[in-house]
């Protein structure tokens, strides 16, 4: 598998660390309630199609990335810097 890092260009999967679903970008407030936090940390749609997820280019530039990838075909649709999403 190869991911196109927006900074470094296309790189082998071995340079990246995988975190999980990109819902981790949407951290609830401290008083959002148990259900919101359960959603954030545990519950997943886990669909078999396109998934927004978080990768880190650990062995490259160090950027955290939001990757949209089809988890049934492994086709990568888009890659954006995580920091651009919240800005």
């Amino acid at each position, binding site marked *: 598998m190869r991911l196109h890092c927006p*900074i*470094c*260009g296309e*790189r*082998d999967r*071995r*340079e990246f660390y995988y975190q999980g679903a990109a819902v981790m970008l949407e951290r609830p407030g401290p008083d959002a309630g148990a259900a919101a936090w359960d959603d954030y940390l545990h519950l997943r749609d886990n669909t078999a199609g396109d998934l927004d997820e978080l990768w880190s*280019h*650990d*062995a*490259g*530039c*160090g*950027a955290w990335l939001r990757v949209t990838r089809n988890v049934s075909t492994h086709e990568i649709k888009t890659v954006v810097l995580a920091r651009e999403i919240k800005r």
Partner: protein
Amino acid sequence: MAELMAKTPLDDMPPRGIGSCTLEEIDLGALTSISPYAGAQIDAPFKAAHGMAWPAPNRATGKAGARAIWFGRDVSLLAGPKPDPKLAEYAALTDQSDAWTAVALSGDRVEDVLARLVPLDLSVAQFKRGHTARSQIQHMNASVTRIGTDRFLLMVFRSMAGTLLHDLERAMASVASRG
């Protein structure tokens, strides 16, 4: 009382040649990571202070003795001179002079040697002089920069100097054996 004695990561290893390639430990001088703060325009002050361009991602500027090597997301490495203190206004400066093992690998089959260790297309058409990359050398996170037609600057953590030497020598021997 005795003064503190400095030791290089490879303990001043003399250059080693295997086949047509040569491996040598090099002294890059002071190393400073420069990470510009949000919105800081560092290009002009950097150029003014050190006489070379602030490198774009995946590029290195300057020349032997004074280089600026892109070193990752929002960070470049000034190699050679100590940084102009005024740059601290624009960027976080961190001394890294002792944190890295730096070697130069050269020879006409240097690309073949690196093809055994680095998961990048380093052919000269793709990776020209002045190109740099953060990637891996075998299992080590590394900085790889082409500093000549057949010469590369390779950097890994200081503590991994022994493993770097082991991995490079092995790849050099393998390429040499192919004749």
